């Protein structure tokens, strides 16, 4: 069964574009990455799936349930980690965690204790006194303490230090290995590359690529680094050009034309490598030119 399935899902805010004709399929039990820059439609997609906003057209189901008709049933099995965690002022962390558990009608105190210990979260402090990172930890515990079968994580590591990021992804991997589906929305591509099997790239409200992370990395684009004298003028398909003693660029054009250019030059060293996801991301966003 698909954990998330959207069919031509569209959301407009008045005349402003949110997402357009989104077709997405996330299998149960997989860790799925959702990549896109700010304003691409990632949060709109998540907010639509969670029932915070209604779709303008199209359909979607989460865990086999319709997002409009069965909102509450979906939320019962879903843990959501927002990009910016905001809580009720004046409340202590332990009260927020208890409120979250009570709203789910569950006693999650045991799991909450374990998570707080792993994330080094002091539950006796008031949420207003917490740093951005610590508020994020509260949100993580709220999202995970009920052991949901679907985790929707929106920019999950913002504010967390590297050690906490490592611990967080360790927890996520454990949950995933126990069968939870993870939907990880991020613009930090290494997060997706290291933790997800498949990913979709969203740009200006539309999915422009959806494949395994490996396949996305195996796009036609290659990272070329040349040391020496080469005239690359007139060559199409060059992006992210960095010139210096070594010229480095992302190349998605005709390889024969590139080899001809290199042969005409005076090359002392050459390397051709697979670009990492970060570079692929730039490659996708470069199409159309305005966001590279």
């Amino acid at each position, binding site marked *: 069964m698909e954990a998330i399935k959207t069919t031509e899902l569209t959301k407009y805010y008045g005349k402003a574009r949110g997402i357009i004709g989104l077709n997405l399929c996330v299998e149960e039990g997989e860790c799925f990455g959702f990549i896109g820059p700010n304003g691409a439609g990632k949060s709109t997609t998540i907010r639509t799936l969670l029932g*915070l906003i209604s779709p303008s057209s199209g359909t979607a189901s989460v865990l086999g349930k319709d997002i409009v008709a069965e909102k509450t049933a979906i*939320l019962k099995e879903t843990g959501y980690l*927002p990009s910016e965690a*905001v*809580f009720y002022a*004046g409340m202590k962390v332990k009260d927020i965690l208890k409120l*979250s558990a009570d*709203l789910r009608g569950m006693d999650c105190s045991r799991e909450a204790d374990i998570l707080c210990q792993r994330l080094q979260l002091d539950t006796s402090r008031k949420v207003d006194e917490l740093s951005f990172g610590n508020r994020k930890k509260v949100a993580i515990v709220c999202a995970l303490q009920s052991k949901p079968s679907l985790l929707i994580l929106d920019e999950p590591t913002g504010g967390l230090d590297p050690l906490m990021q490592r611990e967080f992804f360790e927890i996520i991997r454990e949950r995933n290995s126990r069968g939870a589906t993870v939907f990880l929305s991020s613009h930090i591509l290494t997060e997706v590359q290291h933790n997800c099997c498949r990913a979709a790239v969203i740009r200006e409200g539309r999915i422009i690529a959806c494949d395994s992370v490996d396949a996305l990395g195996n796009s036609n684009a290659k990272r070329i680094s040349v040391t020496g004298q080469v005239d690359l003028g007139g060559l199409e398909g060059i992006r992210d050009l960095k010139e210096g003693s070594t010229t480095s660029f992302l190349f998605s054009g005709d390889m024969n034309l590139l080899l001809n250019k290199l042969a005409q030059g005076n090359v002392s060293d050459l390397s051709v490598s697979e670009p990492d996801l970060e570079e692929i991301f730039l490659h996708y966003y470069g199409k159309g030119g305005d966001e590279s």
Partner: protein
Amino acid sequence: MTIARHELRLGRKSFLIWLCSLSLLLGICIFLFPEMKKEMDTISEMFSSMGAFTAAFGMDKLNFGTLVGYYAIECGNVLGLGGAFFASLCAVSILSKEEKERTAEFLLTHPVGRFRIITEKILAVLIQVILMNAAVFLVSIGSMAAIGESIPWKEMILLHLAYLLMQIELAGICFGVSAFIRRSSLGIGLGIAILMYFLNIMANITDSVSFLKYITPFGYCDSSAVVSDLSLDAVKICIGMAIGLVGVCAAYIEYGRKDIH
């Protein structure tokens, strides 16, 4: 009842401040009565000869020299306006604050339907309004007993019941407004309460706009009319409760379908 309990806890401080203020004002007024009673002849004459001002506050129908007449006028101002402000402020922010303070995402991504959220939130408003009125009623009764006056039970119960109903109606209207707004709503709440209060004063001053008494909830809790008639106007109350109900229904419809930002 998690959400209602949570709301009551969030509103605890504000509730206590309002309760102390209203109780203190009413208590002081009542404790001033024995002193006022001595000079009542002069005061009553003065209050009954201020023309439109006298009519506006119902002082033409009440004897300021009796405890019940004195209390009805003081109650009209303190509990009428103060209670109206409390109920309006309480209701007008209860839905909108979630978006304004950006906690809506937290609340609405838990498995609680919007219908349940609205129901528990209006319940929290009603509990606070009823508790406030019950406490203020007890303070007034206690203060009257403390100054050694006999308690005019029927008048007191009718007056306080009328004020409770007025606050419930205002809360219903403001609750409906709360579902439509996303930003600061306190000004709107105060505005609605003041508007309704002045509509009643206008209706008291001139007969040509007496129909306004059917629109404003202050119309059926005009303390001078309640004390002199020893009854409440059922028609005005039914209209008022219907208006309040429309507000609550509007909240269910709007909040049930709106996009939460």
